[in-house]
């Protein structure tokens, strides 16, 4: 157990420096990269806040789509196992298992939730898809 500031607080201190002191004083490509860097720190912050819950939910969804296996206990092992099972799911898709029918619906539902979880971390604003103007 570390002393405060927490990881979140440390990250926020650097984001704050980038946003309020560096970005306004920089120009051109340096300003652009400082913005990108601040955004990367916010991604890290959101990932830390959501990771445990997202990994658990993804594991349970994969259980419903593939043969169930024992859930690894450490985070690293869980990530590796999710990757391996996602490879298995990709292989099933390539074989045509999700071309139609209830399995397709189930796969689509899983992927929508998985990609939503990725966007919650990488770019939450992207999740809402506005109506297009016509005419």
């Amino acid at each position: 157990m570390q002393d405060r500031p927490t990881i979140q607080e440390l990250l926020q201190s650097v984001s704050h420096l980038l946003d309020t002191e560096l970005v306004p004083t920089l120009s051109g490509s340096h300003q652009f990269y400082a913005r990108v860097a601040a955004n990367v720190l916010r991604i890290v912050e959101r990932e830390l806040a959501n990771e445990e819950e997202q990994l658990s939910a993804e594991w349970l969804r994969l259980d419903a789509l593939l043969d169930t296996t024992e859930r690894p206990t450490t985070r690293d092992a869980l990530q590796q196992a999710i990757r391996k099972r996602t490879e298995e799911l990709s292989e099933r898709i390539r074989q045509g298992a999700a071309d139609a029918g209830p399995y397709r619906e189930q796969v689509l539902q899983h992927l929508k939730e998985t990609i939503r979880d990725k966007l919650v971390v990488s770019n939450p604003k992207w999740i809402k898809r506005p109506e297009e103007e016509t005419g």
Partner: protein
Amino acid sequence: MTNSPNIPNIPIDELARRLADFLKRSFSTAQEKTLQHVHVQELRLLTGGASRLTWSFDAVLEEPDGQTQTLALILRSDPPGGPQAVMERDLEYRVIAAAYDEGALVPQPYFLGDDSLGAPFFIMERIEGETIPRRLFREAAYDDARQIMPQQLGKILAKIHRIPVEKYPLADLLAPQQGRSAAEEEIARYEDKYHTMAREPHPTLELAFRWLRQHLPADSSRVLVHGDYRMGNIMFASDGVRSILDWELAHIGDPMEDLGWICVRSWRFGQDHLPVGGLGTRAAFQRAYEQAGDYPVDPERVRFWEIFGNLRWGVICLNMTQPFLDGQNQSVELAAIGRRAAETEWELLHLMEA
């Protein structure tokens, strides 16, 4: 002394001198007259992209009688050992030259380079304008431009698709292989790229490749496709479109490919309710395209290519982050883009089901 980034071992004033010598020779040959001097001024690097370097400079041409003329020019060259040269420099030059000849609103090409800079290059006109979409959306100076650009973009694209490729030395352009439709060709190209490069499984992309193969449009007429016709590659000013840039992804294919690509959500830059580049409606853009080019727009086919476009941009995001993952390039921009594939996957999941 500053080194010129990526043109190896050439300090910037040496680069300016070599450029001046090259221009003096080239102008003298082209105009069948001798220039007394050529001075290269204000040489500076505009963008050092992964696959191209773009330099801006002024050339002062001095004739023997002392008369001078100043030209605003661009130098396009390769970074040495760039990740993958998508198109040979001389082919890109020939594409731009053909588009210019046919009046398709591109910078005037001046000269294809020789070996005098140690890397392939060409020289073209420098057109003044802006390319950053968010400026176009926000600044009052572009109020009129925003109104007329959807129509202009439709009209210009129709003109590009009418370029008679066979009239020009463009046989080296990528084109569908024998027995493959334009759509099959593009799917195969990006599927190969995806499978050789992706390090993590992407089941959404796998689903999309299958969906596209199961929804192939009937084969179409084959035209010169720009390949990257979108906001960011379109130069504009307060009076609208000034120039179409970045021809290095041009190829022979289905004209509807370009119409789908410009609707990909990533090119709306936050103006998501306006499908054509964050600027206009599909109807306004497609009407202008039809009226100018006499090509009917098939909205179903455009939709197919928009879905393909999302898949293609997803694969490109994964590809762009590779040099970072390999440790060849520490750029935070290349790092961040690895997380952007999810945006295209979100679009794919919704568009496939629509």
